[in-house]
């Protein structure tokens, strides 16, 4: 999975651009932003909670103080002789007791009902409303019987009250004979505590709960946070064991902040997604033209379509890249063209070469077939004449024998020279013909060759004319025997394919490129242009096979090959009816030889 992702990243620039753009946004917007919001939320929540806990602590103490003060005041009041007197003096109660009670019915800005009750719990004198206190007669009577002051938290019509029963001990009996009972509305106290902070009153509800050991912090089933702080109380009040319960819909309070955070997080996620898409689009802005260029290259090679003009018209980097592409594509096209031409040429050359090869092959085949034919011919003669010799009678044998032996010798010699030549040709083609170079005196060589061919010339009635002025020539760096062979072949050919009483002329001239041209001219029938090509083809006798002129037909072929080996060139011209000139260009010096071989 990771591999595919990594590969996608390597392949697609748009992915990388998208990653580059979106990663910071992810980090800052989403992660850091969300984290910051979460931190803000947490710390604000905790701060608010701490503030509330502190408020709870302060207010619990204030409530405790209020209670303690009320209790202390009422206790002192209950020890007032006037109050106790009121237990006994019914007539007096109305006159002095009620105003006294009324004057004590507001303590610490908290107003409450204050009642003097008898031992049963019936009210004997009061300030305020005794209605509520009457319902507690049993509790009051019980407390008076016990002789101990006691406190309760009572709920009357959905309002919570502190009920204080301050027992009055009759000094003459040391028994509880009455009580100062008060009912303090807790809601009034809460209101006076909260009234400085209007916001609080709308969000926090104060309540009284049962005892706890330490400040407690809970969330009830309705999602309301309760911060419970024990209320510190003194003496008998402490038996009350109450705690201030701050009910706060903390979660509600923080709803706006949570909403904002959620909005932020959602917004940042949306933003992130948008950024991803925008950056992907951005990336594509780059990669699409590139792809188009790529396609245009491919297209170009396939369909010869131009670079899309809209890319060329762009002024940005893509545009300049497109123009470069366009130029390159133009060049490529030209190159392609040239290449194609070259390829065509080469192909043609190759075809030619191939054809040559084929031809050579064909030539070889023909050569072989010709050769075999040629080989067969003297062989047949030899065998035939030999047979004849067997068959003929002894008498006739002698006269015939010479003739036949002569023929056999002829044929044999022909066969031998043919075989030699074939071997030679083979050797030459195989590159195995030995050639040994040395400085050779030209004139000597030519004279030797001429004298070799005198007899042949005489036989054919041809004149051998030496116009070489060979003595003037420098020495040649060549293989003497081979050169002799070449010249021999040319001269013998010139003699053989001459007209009657014709002439063969040898010429020699030095060429500009350090070569010596030895030419052999004859005045024979000459050759037609269409015969020129076939001249050097082995065994191609150009119609002379059936003729009298002996020859194997491979002499020129070998000669040319030998000339090549000597580092020279052989060529000819011919005019039908006039004759031909065969020449060989032989290098003079070693360097030229080496340059040509």
């Amino acid at each position, binding site marked *: 999975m990771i591999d595919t992702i990594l590969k996608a990243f390597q392949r697609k620039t748009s992915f990388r651009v998208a990653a580059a753009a979106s990663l910071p946004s992810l980090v800052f917007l989403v992660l850091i932003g969300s984290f910051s919001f979460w931190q803000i939320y947490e710390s604000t929540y905790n701060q608010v909670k701490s503030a509330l806990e502190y408020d709870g602590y302060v207010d619990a103490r204030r409530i405790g103080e209020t209670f303690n003060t009320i209790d202390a005041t009422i206790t002192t009041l209950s020890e007032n002789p*006037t109050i106790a007197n009121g237990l006994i003096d*019914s007539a007096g109660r109305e006159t002095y007791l009620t105003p006294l009670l009324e004057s004590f019915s507001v303590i610490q800005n908290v107003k409450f009902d204050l009642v003097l009750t008898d031992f049963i719990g019936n009210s004997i004198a009061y300030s305020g409303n005794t209605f509520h206190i009457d319902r507690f007669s049993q509790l009051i009577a019980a407390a008076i019987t016990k002789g101990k002051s006691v406190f309760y938290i009572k709920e009357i019509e959905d309002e919570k009250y502190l009920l204080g029963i301050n027992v009055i001990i009759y*000094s003459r009996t040391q028994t509880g004979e009455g009580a100062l009972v008060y009912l303090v509305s807790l809601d009034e106290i809460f209101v006076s505590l909260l009234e400085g902070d209007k916001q609080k009153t709308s969000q926090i509800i104060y309540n009284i709960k049962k005892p706890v050991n330490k400040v407690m912090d809970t969330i009830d089933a309705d999602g309301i946070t309760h911060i419970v702080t024990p209320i510190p109380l003194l003496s008998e009040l402490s038996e009350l064991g109450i705690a201030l319960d701050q009910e706060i819909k903390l979660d509600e309070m923080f709803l706006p902040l949570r909403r904002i955070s959620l909005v932020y997080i959602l917004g940042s996620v949306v933003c992130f997604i948008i950024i991803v898409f925008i950056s992907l689009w951005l990336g594509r802005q780059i990669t699409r033209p590139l792809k188009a260029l790529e396609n245009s290259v491919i297209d170009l090679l396939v369909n010869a379509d131009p670079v899309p003009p809209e890319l060329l018209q762009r002024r940005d980097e893509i545009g300049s890249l497109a123009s470069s592409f366009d130029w390159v594509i133009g060049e490529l096209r030209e190159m392609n063209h040239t290449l194609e031409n070259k390829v065509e040429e080469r192909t043609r050359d190759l075809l030619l070469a191939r054809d040559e090869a084929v031809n050579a092959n064909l030539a070889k085949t023909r050569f072989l077939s010709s050769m075999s034919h040629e080989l067969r011919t003297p062989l047949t003669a030899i065998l035939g004449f030999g047979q004849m010799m067997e068959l003929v009678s002894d008498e006739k044998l002698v006269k015939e024998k010479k003739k036949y032996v002569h023929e056999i010798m002829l044929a044999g010699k022909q066969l031998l020279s043919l075989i030699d030549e074939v071997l030679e040709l083979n050797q030459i083609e195989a590159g195995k013909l030995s050639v040994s170079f040395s400085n050779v005196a030209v004139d000597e060589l030519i004279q030797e060759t001429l004298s070799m061919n005198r007899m042949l010339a005489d036989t054919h009635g041809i004149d051998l004319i030496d116009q070489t002025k060979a003595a003037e020539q420098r020495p040649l760096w060549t293989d003497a025997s081979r050169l002799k062979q070449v010249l021999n072949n040319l001269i013998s050919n010139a003699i053989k394919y001459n007209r009657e009483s014709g002439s063969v002329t040898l010429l020699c001239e030095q060429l500009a490129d350090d070569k010596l041209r030895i030419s052999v001219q004859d005045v024979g029938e000459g050759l037609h242009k269409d015969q020129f090509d076939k001249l050097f083809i082995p065994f191609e006798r150009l119609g002379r096979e059936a003729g009298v002129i002996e020859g194997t037909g491979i002499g020129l072929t070998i000669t040319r090959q030998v000339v090549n080996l000597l580092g020279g060139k052989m060529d000819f011209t011919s005019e039908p009816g006039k004759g031909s000139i065969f020449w060989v260009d032989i290098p003079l010096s070693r360097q030229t030889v080496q340059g040509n071989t």
Partner: protein
Amino acid sequence: MRKVWVFISVIVFFSSLGTVQAADKKAVIIALDAEFSLLNSTSAQSIKLGIDTAIAEINSAGGVLNGRPLKLISKDNRSMPARGIHNIRELAKVKDLVAVFSGRFSPVVLETIPMLQQTQMINLAPWSSADGVTENSMSPNYIFRLSLKDRYAMPAMLKFAADNGANKIGLLLTNTSWGRSNLKAAERYLQKTGSPLSVGTAWYNWRDKTLMQEYQILLKAGAQAIILVANDDEGASLVSEMVSLPKDQRLPIISHWGVTGGDFIGQMKTADALDQINFSVVQTFSLFSAKQDKVADVMQTVRRISTINNVEQIDAPVGFGHAYDLTHILAKAINLAGTTERKVIRDKLEQVRDYDGIVKYFKRPFSAQNHDALILEDVFMARYHADGTIRPIKK
């Protein structure tokens, strides 16, 4: 066989006698609701002793209503009016309960008046002295008093003051209905006579730790004697504090008899404090000055029913004497009524005649117009003696 018959019939006869007697012997209940658990109280105890003594005498003489014995139920109201009312309500439910004796405290009796009316309960008052006790709005009046009345007490004390050279007096009163009753009585008397002059009235509450402030006010106002309306604890507190005053600042105290309701002497700071003060107290009865033959008879019964041997041991003698006589008068009324119905007995109480009591001879203790058995002439001044007894001041 025959002997058996006689034996059986004798047994049956006596058992039937028993059943008849058993039927007749159902007790007639009297109640006493007084301040028993009051610390240092002597009043409730002396009242009870008086009633018990009378009941013993009556029962040994055959009881009431043809042999029905009298029985006493005691209740403790702790001098609290609320308790008094509560007790009356409860006592009214008791079958054959004919009357309730009250105790020392006038405020209690006064506050029970509505309940007495409601339950038609006879209240026999042997001690409480507030005028309003008998001068009440009940019609018919269910309260019958054989005791001191402030209407008489005040004049007696004031006359005593004047007779002994105190032309200017100060009234030191307790801030209760009792105190106020006495003020009214004093004002009535002082208006009529020119002497003595009252220099002022000082009030104190019964839980005041000291009366010295009020005393000083009256002293500085020129009082030559103090008319004191107080109970035993307050009186003892005053006397104890007065001892520490220089002699010329110790005024004679002419006291109402509330102080005798408890251990007055015992609550003094020093045992001889009272010796340093000229202290006189109002009384209506003394065992020392009563008819001695009568006293002797009564003492016999007293000795029989209690651990008391001699007269000196009876504290708060007025309670004893008054309650004793009231019980006898009640018995007479019960017999006159012939029923335990309180309504009838109430009427008959007004009809009782010629009762020779220990306090005095009563020609007709009560009448429809007068529910007080004693008169002004029955009131006298007394002093505490070294042995703790209260003896009349001889003229």
